[in-house]
């Protein structure tokens, strides 16, 4: 069930994975980063973020790299990169389909 849920990422999940694709990060930095990147359009609460980190970890999309006190730094795994890229391809396909529909 959980695997199926990650086949298509939610917008928040996509941005979290994007953050890790860009660079290794700790959970506490992600929320700020996504907010800056999307100019406040995408905002995620701490509870949501923590749940996403937990499910990404259990599905092997990210892994622990470092721990300093309460802060844990994660890095994206090969599987995470693959899912991230396939999600981009899916989104691009969506946009292409939408543009085709407009032309028709």
């Amino acid at each position: 069930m959980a695997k199926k849920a990650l086949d298509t990422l939610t917008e928040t999940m996509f941005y979290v994975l994007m953050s890790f694709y860009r660079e290794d990060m700790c959970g506490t930095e992600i929320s700020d980063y996504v907010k800056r990147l999307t100019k406040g359009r995408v905002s995620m609460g701490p509870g949501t973020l923590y749940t996403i980190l937990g499910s990404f970890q259990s599905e092997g999309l990210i892994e622990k790299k470092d721990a300093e006190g309460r802060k844990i730094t994660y890095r994206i795994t090969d599987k995470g990169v693959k899912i991230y890229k396939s999600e981009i391809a899916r989104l691009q396909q969506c946009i292409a389909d939408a543009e085709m529909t407009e032309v028709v």
Partner: protein
Amino acid sequence: MKDRLITLSPFSYLDYEYLESWLTDMASQGWFIEHYGFFRSVFKRGEPSNRIYRVVPRATSSIKDEEIAIFEASGWKFFDSIRSLAIYYNEDPNAEEFFDPEAFKKYSRNYLVLLLIWIPFCVYWIYKFAVYAGSFLTGFGTLNIINDNGIIFYLSLSVGIIFALVAYIRAIYLATSQYLRIKREIKVRHNKQYRKRALFNNIVNTGLIITVVACILSSIFVTFNDERGHIQLDEALNYSESQPYLLREFSPEEWNYIDVESPSFDSSQGSDGRYYSNGEYYIRKNPNILFSKSVTERYEYSVEDATVDEYKSLYYVQYNSSYYEARSEWIAEKFIEELPGYLPIRDAEYKNVSLDEMQVPCDNVDYAGYNKGEGDYQEIIIRKGKQIIYIGYNGKKDLKAEINKIAATL
């Protein structure tokens, strides 16, 4: 001025929306939560502030440092976690809200499943209790049960069951409605009006606590009282309080036998291995809310042939005498009405013998009854005003011949 405020914890694990409103309201009055427990909460006095609290349902009960750090990075400080609820606070009343729908759904579902799992056990337990209580009341009668176990125990047990049922049914209702609501519209509700719910919960919780304590205390009292009232052989032999008709008067031969044989009375085997004897003698005093005096004298003695495979009874005698002084005549009257269902040495087949069927003529008493069962079994019940004598006897003597003599002692 008090520095600490200790109150009952009015909200259950399903009332987290109310809990956070309560904590926020208390902070606005200058009371800041210091400890939140299942029954008791402690607040510390401070300056009234706009601090807001958020109680977060979570999917699991363990909370990790990283989670706390992520919340703190968003401006929410961690206070404490209770089971799967985490309590955070923020000094900024306009702080950005957060909401994790997945954790919310999981929490509600887990709670509902947990409650539903208990339903078969609860139904079974209630059924067993009803059957047990029903058979007790119809078989033995209310007054006889109270005489043995105490009215406080039964009252507190019954009231406690009612409170527990109310709490359980309400929890099922809350969990179901919450789960359905979350499925319908996923959003959390802040600033709830909590006072009525807090009052209701406090009444139920207080009722539960009081009845549980009353049950425990009355059980201890019943046990303690029973032990204290139980006078074993050596002391019982010298018992001389005003029990109108003791074994020593009814059957001096058997009384002398106990007295003589007392050192080996409990159980013994003859030196040649042929006989096995087993005896019991005690006096039990159990005054209570119904009876200012309630004394039972019990004697049982058997001799069996130990040389055969199934011990063959060679001699058997039982004498069971109870004397009561009721606190009112009504109690005495009602008590003997229930007595035929409760008589300790009766077989089931005798339980249908009514007081009317047993009644025999006897001067100067309100009631006298005699019953002869199969074999050597006999019994009498005599009531005069508030006084009652019951004797059940299994032996060779004629108990009926003693009725007038026994009645005269009242």
